[in-house]
């Protein structure tokens, strides 16, 4: 294992795994508490449209994914608030439209697109130093956002109508967290890929909820779990020479299943 740490590409992968683990742990806690998992799935798949379009136009795919991700997140948020279209219908529309646009532009681009495969399934070993600095900056912004806003954020999420009776500007943290969700998804694509990213945003939170029903505690348990299990999965994948994204998800699942069973077997939990 010590030998692995001598390789620069593995150092980068380790740094990215830790940083993405912190971000996914924090943002995922909000996503699960607000029951926004399906929305996150919609945003994730919509980002594929941006990947395809950017690839076709010759721009960095991650920039296209970020643009589509942010626009779809804001689109679902704003259009469903106006209550003209049902939120689940909007998610379905953005989900399928993103995938369709992505497939279309990849088909139209001459040649093979091997790099796009890493965005679908993730390949953290290809993360570069500038990308790590980008994720580090985003991690700092996310931490700061949750430190400053966690209280109004969760209270507004719990009872939006009540917050509005206090003329509380609930849209400030809501729009902020919507952008964070979109960018978290994009910056996590290298680690987990479009197909697997939802596991990073839900399983650590499911594990945290086995320990505590208090969002303040979940906010630190979830990132700790996400980082610890992801790093374990990364080392395992490198040692066994199998895809890191899938190994990390399987590790998360195994930890969840083991803790859930232990909790069932504990006499006080019955």
């Amino acid at each position, binding site marked *: 294992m010590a030998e692995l740490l001598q390789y620069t590409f593995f150092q980068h992968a380790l740094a990215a795994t830790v940083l993405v683990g912190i971000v996914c742990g924090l943002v995922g806690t909000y996503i699960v508490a607000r029951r926004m998992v399906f929305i996150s799935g919609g945003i994730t798949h919509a980002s594929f449209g941006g990947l395809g379009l950017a690839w076709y136009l010759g721009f960095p795919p991650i920039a296209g994914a970020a643009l589509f991700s942010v626009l779809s997140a804001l689109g679902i948020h704003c259009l469903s608030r106006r209550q003209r279209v049902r939120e689940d219908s909007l998610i379905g529309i953005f989900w399928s439209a993103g995938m369709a646009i992505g497939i279309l532009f990849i088909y139209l681009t001459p040649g093979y697109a091997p790099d796009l495969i890493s965005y679908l399934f993730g390949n953290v070993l290809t993360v570069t130093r500038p990308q790590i600095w980008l994720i580090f900056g985003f991690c700092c912004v996310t931490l700061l956002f949750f430190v400053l806003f966690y209280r*109004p954020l969760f209270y507004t*999420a719990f009872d939006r109508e*009540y917050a*509005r*009776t*206090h003329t*509380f500007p609930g849209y400030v943290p809501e729009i902020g967290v919507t952008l964070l969700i979109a960018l978290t998804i994009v910056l996590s694509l290298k680690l987990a890929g479009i197909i697997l990213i939802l596991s990073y945003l839900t399983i650590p939170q499911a594990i945290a909820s086995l320990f*505590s029903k*208090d969002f303040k505690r979940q906010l630190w348990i979830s990132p700790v779990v996400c980082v610890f299990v992801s790093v374990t999965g990364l080392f395992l994948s490198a040692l066994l020479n199998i895809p890191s994204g899938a190994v990390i998800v399987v590790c998360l699942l195994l930890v969840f299943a083991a803790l859930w069973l232990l909790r069932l077997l504990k006499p006080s939990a019955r």
Partner: protein
Amino acid sequence: MGTLLELKQVTAGYDGDPVLRNVSFCVEELDFVGITGPNGGGKTTLLKVILGLLKPSGGTVAFSVPRRDLFGYLPQQNTFDKQFPLTVEDVVLSGLLSEKGIWKRYTRDDRSRAGALLEQYGLGSYRNTPIGELSGGQAQRAFLCRAVIASPRVLVLDEPTTYVDAGFEREFYDLLPALNRKHTILMVSHDWDAIRSYGKTVLRVDREVQEIHV
């Protein structure tokens, strides 16, 4: 005693379809306004207009003090997510949302206020319990603590005893006279006996508002 809020010729509804038409009335300080009427008559719409959750398509709603300091709101019991990871204390403290805004942290005094209220309403030992683990009556008491913690001038109760057991219903009605000594109360209810017993002003809402003398 002064007028706290006044509705003048208010028309309100959804998607251009008016549910309330030309509604006018005043709410005086420490009044107890019982609001009753048939389903779909506009009781909840009226509360939404007063609380600022629905913009009227016509008429005006005037307040004698800033609206953010005016209301404590107890919504219907069935509207909250029982899986949401909030403790009972967090729920009560969320009643200080407008006082604290986005930046201010809770002080020891805020937590003492929440603790004292929870003790007063028999929930002292549930402070750190997840809100979803309380029974219907206990949850409603926790939401009542949230509604009163900021000492609002007006307490708005939207069918407060629906979805709770008969024991809590009696207990809740026993609290009303003491609450009315501190707060003006607007209560929507189908329970005619309660409206008649506690209401100083009784309004029947069926598209229009009619004051009933009981």
